């Protein structure tokens, strides 16, 4: 009996992500969820980001719009308003959501746009070689804070999910991870909920996913996933922050 196979919406293109990168896990989960929803690929539009996740449009076989850096929620707003019956979601990293595109994402949530936002938080700017991001936990070392993030000098990790939960336009805000097979199952459920709420036009859904960037964390994939369980979740506790 077949128990698991590569989702058919995931293309045969080899993904460019580094070995063990959580981006790939989330790409795979999104493809699984979309396949299971079975609403027809013509009814799904993704908005892809700038950053390590940029090539997602080559990996999941649906329609995509590539937005300028950080502007995915603004583009998704237009797409969804013109196609209110379609599933519209963005896929964005922490560079987009907590830095260059914070304005767009906050206001899309505040308007309660009926989109889902998949927010990959790997605590660094991955594509540009692992500089400190607004999401870097205190004490974590990066190329621009080699002694660890110091709040006196660098401020504090930005708790985006908490901010999203406080905004009236959001209907569902959750923080998940993909560092264990159980976490993968939970993330899959969360993404499914977010997509369902988006289709039901309940407001904006945000799924933040605490991800590993083994390359820039200078760890093996196994070490990086363990670091999430041992360290990252202290700054970013997992679970639902808001349910409709």
């Amino acid at each position, binding site marked *: 009996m*077949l128990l698991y196979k*590569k989702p058919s919406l995931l293309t045969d293109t080899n993904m460019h992500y580094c070995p063990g990168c959580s981006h790939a*896990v989330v790409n795979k989960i999104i493809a699984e969820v979309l396949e299971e929803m079975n609403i027809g690929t013509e009814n799904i539009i993704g908005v892809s980001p700038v950053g390590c996740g940029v090539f997602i449009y080559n990996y999941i076989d649906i329609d995509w719009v590539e937005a300028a850096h950080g502007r995915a929620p603004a583009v998704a707003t237009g797409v969804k308003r013109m196609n209110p019956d379609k599933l519209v979601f963005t896929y964005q990293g922490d560079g987009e959501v907590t830095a260059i595109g914070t304005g767009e994402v906050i206001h899309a949530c505040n308007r309660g746009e009926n989109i889902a936002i998949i927010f990959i938080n790997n605590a660094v700017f991955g594509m540009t070689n692992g500089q400190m991001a607004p999401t870097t936990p205190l004490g974590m070392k990066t190329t621009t804070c080699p002694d660890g993030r110091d709040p006196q000098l660098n401020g504090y990790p930005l708790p985006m999910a908490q901010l999203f939960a406080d905004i009236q336009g959001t209907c569902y805000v959750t923080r998940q991870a993909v560092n264990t097979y159980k976490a993968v199952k939970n993330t899959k459920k969360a993404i499914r909920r977010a997509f369902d709420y988006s289709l039901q036009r309940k407001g904006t859904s945000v799924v933040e996913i605490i991800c590993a960037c083994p390359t820039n964390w200078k760890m093996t994939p*196994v070490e990086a996933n363990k670091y999430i369980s041992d360290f990252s979740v202290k700054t970013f506790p997992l679970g639902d922050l808001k349910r409709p």
Partner: protein
Amino acid sequence: MFHHLLLTAVHATIQQGNVNIDNNRCKGCGLCVATCPAKTLQLSNNVNTRGYNFSQQLRPNRCIGCASCALICPDACITVFRTGLRKTI
């Protein structure tokens, strides 16, 4: 675990599974190897067409078809089958 079952002489059965790994899609990240509860997987000393030490199943008869490896695999390289129950004694 098997030793313990043998001593208590129960007629335990266990799920038997089987995996198929797409060697050329694999990036040798080792997450499946670390996750497999039955310790059936190992990275090969050989490399695939992209230069990665791919994952392979060394002790297939120990696989319990739990799919943990497939869930954690970032590149969706692993297909998992359940092939039925087998006696552990």
